[in-house]
């Protein structure tokens, strides 16, 4: 992609393969949602599809990580996610508490078992 960036300029690349692919899906959603009420069956089904898709993204980010996160062993990432979920349940369903517990577990695990 470096060659394309040099030839066309990074801003044109940004519009063509960053902005447009995202905006097309958003505008398609806008057109589809016209005239639909929030309890219509299509809207409820869209919510289930979006939720399942998002859950798939989350699981993939944890199990098949990329970048620097991939340097931390898989078992540590899964353990940290489990710690986060446990802390979330234990501490009044607080997302903050869960995220902090997960990050601390990841940091400790990465420090002890990494590399």
């Amino acid at each position, binding site marked *: 992609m*470096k060659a394309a960036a040099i030839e066309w300029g990074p801003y044109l690349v940004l519009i063509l393969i960053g902005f447009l692919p995202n905006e097309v899906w958003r505008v398609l959603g806008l057109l589809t949602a016209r005239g639909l009420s929030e309890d219509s069956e299509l809207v409820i089904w869209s919510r289930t599809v979006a939720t399942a898709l998002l859950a798939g993204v989350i699981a993939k980010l944890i199990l098949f990580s990329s970048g620097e996160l991939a340097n931390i062993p898989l078992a540590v990432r899964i353990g940290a996610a489990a710690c986060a979920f446990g802390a979330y349940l234990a501490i009044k369903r607080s997302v903050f508490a869960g995220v902090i517990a997960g990050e601390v577990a990841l940091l400790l695990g990465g420090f002890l078992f990494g590399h």
Partner: protein
Amino acid sequence: MSAASTTFPKSVIAYFAGVQSAVLSVFFVVIMGTYVGLGALAHDVGLSSGWLAISTVLVWAAPSQLIMISGFGTGATLFEVALGVTLSATRLFPMVVALLPLLRVRGTRVRDMLLPTHFTSISMWVESLRLLPAIAREHRIAFCNGLSSAYMGTAVTFGFVGYYLAAGLPSLLAGVLLFLTPMSFFLSTVRNARMMIDKLSLVLGLILGPLLFYWGVQLDLMWTGIIGGSVAYAIHRVREATQ
């Protein structure tokens, strides 16, 4: 359906109530961490900080930005990156369809929906679905725009912070920053899933996503959404019919 309670004297006050909700939510911290990470990455692959800021405003999807910026660094072809971004962006379609009916009142014009449509992203969607039902219908668009512009402003600002701090970021810390996104999305989606239909979609997506990817299924995430969501929807319909 829901008991809308919170009303505001003016739209501008609803807007700032949205800003306040953004600052008090977990995503405020998560977006900071995520964009410090993206800023560092943009610096490492030789993009300018202005490019990163403009991409945050125009693309407004951290996963797509990650794919693009990494693409500049690795030898990926333009086509591969475009395909990755397009597939990752499919999630925005059902999200917008599920969100906009919550924002509309009688007489809402399409142009009032343009900004919330562009602002749709995972963090904004999760928070909107949680908070909007308690807000008076006529103020939901202003509230939503306040919430989203605060998130976007945070992202742009901390993209710059990461960009200029890049050199000193140790590997383990960079990994910890990248972990913020899946952790916060995971727990906030769990928190939002109060009804059986949402819990089912969540669990099915968590199982199907990695499985389809592992099996090498093409368009794995799209199928995860369609199959997982439809099965959850079908079970919900059967339960309703038998009750």
